[in-house]
């Protein structure tokens, strides 16, 4: 039984048919990546899992429980966290307050909360340096770290990452991907959406290729990065 499972999911934005029957499975402990070009439906897939969009058809299951009918804040409670596209840091809350919001469902007086904070600051020492700075004043890379840290504060079982490398300098991209591997090494299941297919496939176990709302390829990451079509379309190789 897969930890997270999408079965034939159709999601619409008004009349636009954004997801046309997507089926994805994520097993415990995996890094699974969704790659594809702009507008392929990658973010919509994550938004559908988190409950921000409701599928018109199909099912989303988490630990074999249907979650596509429950509101986003309940889904978080079950153990699915998302670092959304564009980071979406609360700009006028401080770094610490942003992290506290991540821990909204937990008791912030408990030692577990402190342990969570320490874990985030160990992964992202930069956040500790910026702890009382307003979220909106952070650099893009720091905001990405904060978005991921904030998602970790919800104590998830699955971490959904939407384009964590977007708009970042290559050094930072490298660093972010290393951290994703570290988190995964600590036992976190990760569903990673990326345009940066090369690096995503390098750390992922399996991957799906999305094209205009449909899955056109699904395979282990190694095989995908060797696939001719993938190489041409997403890895920039001729």
């Amino acid at each position, binding site marked *: 039984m897969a930890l997270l499972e999408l079965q034939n999911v159709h999601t619409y934005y008004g009349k636009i048919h954004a997801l046309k029957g997507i089926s994805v499975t994520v097993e415990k402990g995996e890094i699974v990546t969704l790659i594809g070009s702009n507008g392929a439906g990658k973010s919509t897939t994550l938004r559908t899992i988190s409950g*921000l969009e409701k599928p018109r058809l199909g099912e989303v299951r988490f630990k074999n429980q249907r979650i596509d009918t429950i509101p*986003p804040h309940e889904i978080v409670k079950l153990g699915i966290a998302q670092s959304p596209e564009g980071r979406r840091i609360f700009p006028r*809350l401080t770094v610490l307050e942003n992290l506290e919001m991540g821990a*909204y469902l937990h008791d912030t007086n408990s030692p577990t909360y*402190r342990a969570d*904070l320490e874990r985030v600051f160990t992964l992202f020492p930069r956040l500790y340096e910026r702890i009382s700075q307003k979220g909106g004043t952070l650099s893009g890379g720091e905001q990405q770290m904060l978005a991921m840290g904030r998602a970790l504060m919800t104590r998830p079982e699955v971490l959904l990452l939407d384009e964590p490398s977007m708009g970042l300098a290559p050094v930072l991209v490298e660093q972010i991907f290393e951290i994703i591997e570290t988190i995964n090494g600590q036992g976190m299941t990760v569903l990673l959406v990326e345009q940066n297919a090369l690096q995503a496939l390098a750390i992922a176990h399996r991957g799906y290729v999305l094209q205009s709302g449909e899955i056109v390829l699904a395979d282990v990451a190694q095989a995908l990065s060797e696939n001719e079509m993938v190489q041409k379309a997403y890895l920039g190789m001729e």
Partner: protein
Amino acid sequence: MAAEVNAPASARFGRRSPLEVLRTVFGPVFQLFLFIVGSALALSLIVVLLALMQMGSRPDILTRALTILPQVIIDGLVRGFLFATIALGYTMVYGVLEFINFAHGEIFMVGGIVGAAIGLMLFTSGMLAGVPVLLFVAIVVLAGMVVSGSLAVAVERVAYRPLRGSPRLVPLISAIGVSLVLQDVVRLIVTNTPMGFNARYHTPDFGSPIRLFEIDLGERVVPVIVSPKALVFISVALLMLIGLNYLVNATRLGKAIRATAQDRPTASLMGINVNRIISLTFLIGGALGGAAGALFGLNVGAVNPYMGFIPGLKAFTAAVLGGIGNITGAMVGGVVLGFLEAFVSSYLSLFTNGALSGAAYADIAAFSILILILIFRPSGLLGEATTQKV
């Protein structure tokens, strides 16, 4: 390196120090205090300058201007806190939903009606004279808060929530509709009860005006008087403003409100029940408005179903003046507007030698400010320039 980071993290951020809490709560209150003192001083200075300019033709004008000055400042404070407490309701709802709840003036009115109804009930049962003043104030304020707060929550559920996601004009029109409905429903109720359309606000005896101090102007000694009702109004309003600042800046719920205001979908990704936060915002705004209504009616001595309209519009002006969506801004905008109005209504006729009656022009002054602000500084005194949310 990681280990070095760990130690201070747990030591420093396990809990918030009381000092930090005080700073987050009293920072805005201190800012408000500065604006109160600042606008009172600035306006007094203008009054003195105007008086000095006219000294040649009217030698007694400075004395006359100074005689009423303390009274004008007290009046300004009362008006200012009135606008501030109502403006908070506008600004909090705007912060979370980016929508102007034009029915908020009626929420305020309902608070006044509830207070007057309690006064009348106590009066007819003959118990009124025996009720201690502070207990009476506590009863009407709490009742106003409960009724208006729940009414605001109900209005949101019925008239605004179903329209969420529709074009922005639609809930606005719905709000105007709610405003008219509330006015006329309340009118229907009061005119069919012993209250009557213009209901008298019965209160226990608040005692005689309090003489604060006297100013010696040479030829005569002028006492500075504050009515106990005005004093109650100012104190309760101040307590509520401090309480709200504590709630919004120092509690988990307050942070959730701010997070929801800054980014609704992302707030829901944190596990925040956004609908509940929106209801809560209406509850708090409505409760503040209801308390203000109960106190305003008590201060004025009478209430009617249309009494919320003009204060509502002025409080909206105050919210825009301070920067709509900004909680400290609403308070600051309220007191600044209150002072301006008090000064215009008291001094205009003095300085125009009776040509313009000030009280009648106070409204013009208030709404001219709204227009000027919308033209020259739409973001308000404390508002941040509207930037794209990234």
